[in-house]
């Protein structure tokens, strides 16, 4: 138990909840929400990996010793990755909403099970 902390497991449960939503839901908005939850879970997971117990934020303040700072601060690379992936997720979701709006325009519904122009 010591080796596998609760936080990792909970982040993965969140991921699984999102996956369930993407697989089982039929409403386009619900699918977007589920995908967002999955992205959320992954971002959280990356940050948890970069965490250091009793650490400080990776922003130096005046008068701090560099070596002391380096031994205290949490992982800056993980945070940079998360910022990038948040923005990428935002752009994917923006595009998704655009397509969903246009789909609604064509079909007058968000229910994907009613969209049957494609054969398979």
């Amino acid at each position, binding site marked *: 138990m*010591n*080796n*596998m*902390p*609760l*936080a*990792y497991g*909970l982040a993965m449960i*969140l991921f*699984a*909840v999102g*996956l*369930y939503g993407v*697989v*089982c839901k039929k*409403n386009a*908005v*619900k699918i*977007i*929400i589920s995908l*967002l*939850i999955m992205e*959320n879970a992954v971002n*959280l997971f990356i*940050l948890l*990996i970069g*965490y*250091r117990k009793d*650490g*400080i*934020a990776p*922003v*130096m303040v005046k008068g701090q010793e*560099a070596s002391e700072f*380096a031994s205290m*601060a949490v992982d*800056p*690379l*993980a*945070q*940079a990755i*998360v*910022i*990038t992936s*948040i*923005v*990428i*997720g*935002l*752009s994917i*979701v*923006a*595009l998704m*909403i*655009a397509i969903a*709006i*246009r789909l*609604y325009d064509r079909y007058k*519904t*968000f229910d994907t099970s009613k969209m049957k122009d494609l054969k398979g």
Partner: protein
Amino acid sequence: MIELILFFKIIAAIIAIESKNLLSAIVSLGAVGFALAIIMVFLNAPDVAIVQVLVEVVLLVILVRATLHRDLTDLKGKREFFVKVFGIVAVGAFFLGIAWGLISLPVFGSFPETAVSVAVPSEWYLAHGLRQTGISNIVTAVLLDYRAYDTLGEVTVLFSAILGAVVILRKKR
């Protein structure tokens, strides 16, 4: 503390997915996002927390504004029982696999295990970031200096998504 907020977050996520009312689903999604922002503050990630809060607000505004007034806000129709059971079973199996895989990860909060060396880049950033780039916010230093190429890609992705949205919603075919 983090675990407590995470429990709350998972409940919010389940409500967001299962709720029959679209508005409450979107609001619960907001709860998920803001809970993540709070966790980020606990994890000492102020930069990310700021971006997360702002992105969450943008997404909620866009989702509500763009989708809500278009459709019935209440979802109708019976739920398919078998789909649900299948989904839960599949997700459970998935989770068991994951639990097996997570055991070998380093202990939570143990970063880093090794001494300062070039082989662990984040250590290098912390130790030499200020001297090499001259700025004190190491996360910005990584984003815009050490890994600036990633940021170019990221800005381009955003540009591409904007262009795509404009193209999809244009008037003429």
